[in-house]
């Protein structure tokens, strides 16, 4: 007979721990936030320039929650591209979230279905990078991982959504000087560093980068998926051979 789960004896200690984990998840993303803020402001300004209202901008940011795909969609909308092509192209841009979903899934073993519905919404580049690095470096149960992931993913999503709205309001007043478009690549470099351990990982990273450069002209952003596949194959092969 299914029974109501008992309150664990160490319930208070668990709450304290979850608060610490919540804080850890939030703090882990803090160094990335300046770049997210800049990206949000610029994206909001671009969306305002394209003629979207503040409500439309926020609606898109909340519903889609994928900066690169949103900017591509807005660009193509202003060019009167057909809806089917826009959606197909942007889905391809966001297919990487499927790889994040797969890579995170084994760490969430035990997590109930309803919780997964919430966690799925905040599967994005930063939550993936920060959380997976944490999961690989310490033993925790799915509850702690969930708290960390929701905190890291939620705060980043919120900052991006708010700054997109602010960027829309500020519009053209945002200076486009400084190498600001370089901040985004930098945070990806910072995110990948903890994972670069051992030769197979390095080989995979080098092959994926080279392939992404060679295949960057493939339509529908498929170069990214192909490059990732080649990198994974190279790394796996190197590991199996070692």
């Amino acid at each position, binding site marked *: 007979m299914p029974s109501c789960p008992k309150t664990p004896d160490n319930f208070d200690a668990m709450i304290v721990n979850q608060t610490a984990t919540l804080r850890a998840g939030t703090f882990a993303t803090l160094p990335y936030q300046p770049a997210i803020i800049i990206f949000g402001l610029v994206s909001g300004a671009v969306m305002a320039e394209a003629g979207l209202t503040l409500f439309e901008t926020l609606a898109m940011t909340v519903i889609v929650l994928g900066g690169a795909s949103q900017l591509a969609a*807005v660009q193509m909308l202003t060019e009167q591209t057909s809806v089917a092509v826009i*959606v197909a192209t942007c889905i391809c841009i966001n297919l990487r979230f499927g790889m994040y979903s797969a890579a995170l899934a084994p760490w969430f073993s035990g997590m109930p279905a309803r919780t997964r519905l919430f966690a799925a919404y905040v599967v994005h580049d930063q939550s993936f990078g920060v959380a997976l690095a944490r999961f690989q470096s310490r033993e925790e149960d799915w509850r702690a991982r969930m708290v960390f992931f929701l905190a890291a993913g939620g705060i980043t999503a919120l900052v991006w959504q708010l700054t997109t709205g602010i960027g829309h309001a500020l519009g053209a007043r945002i200076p486009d000087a400084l*190498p600001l478009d370089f901040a985004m690549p930098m*945070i*990806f470099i*910072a995110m990948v560093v903890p994972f670069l351990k051992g030769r197979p990982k390095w080989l995979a990273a080098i092959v*994926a980068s080279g*392939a992404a*450069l060679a295949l960057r002209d493939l339509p529908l952003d498929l170069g990214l998926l192909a490059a990732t596949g080649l990198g994974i194959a190279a790394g796996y092969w190197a590991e199996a051979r070692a």
Partner: protein
Amino acid sequence: MIDRPAFWIVTIALGAATYAIRLSFLAWSQSRTFSPRVKRLLDFVPVTVLPALIAPVIVFPAGSVDAVDPARILAALVALGVGLWTKNVIAVILSGIGALMLANSVLMPL
């Protein structure tokens, strides 16, 4: 001018599809487990997706199709080196942007 119905169709369709993509394997793995081989393959996801995402952005700056920017490549390598050395996110970002500004000011007259 953006066509309003088109905007909302794109936003809702893309939002639904993107959420489904995010949920995909989280939902799939609810009642199933990954084989050890698949887990080993998945271990390579971060070291392949993240570099593949940014390599073209670094090497070919926005707006240019074929013009390679050596200053950006140099700055990215500096940032990577600083990251491996310090393991510090802020150090990576600041050293990368600093190196780019320095490289630009040195390379500009050439």
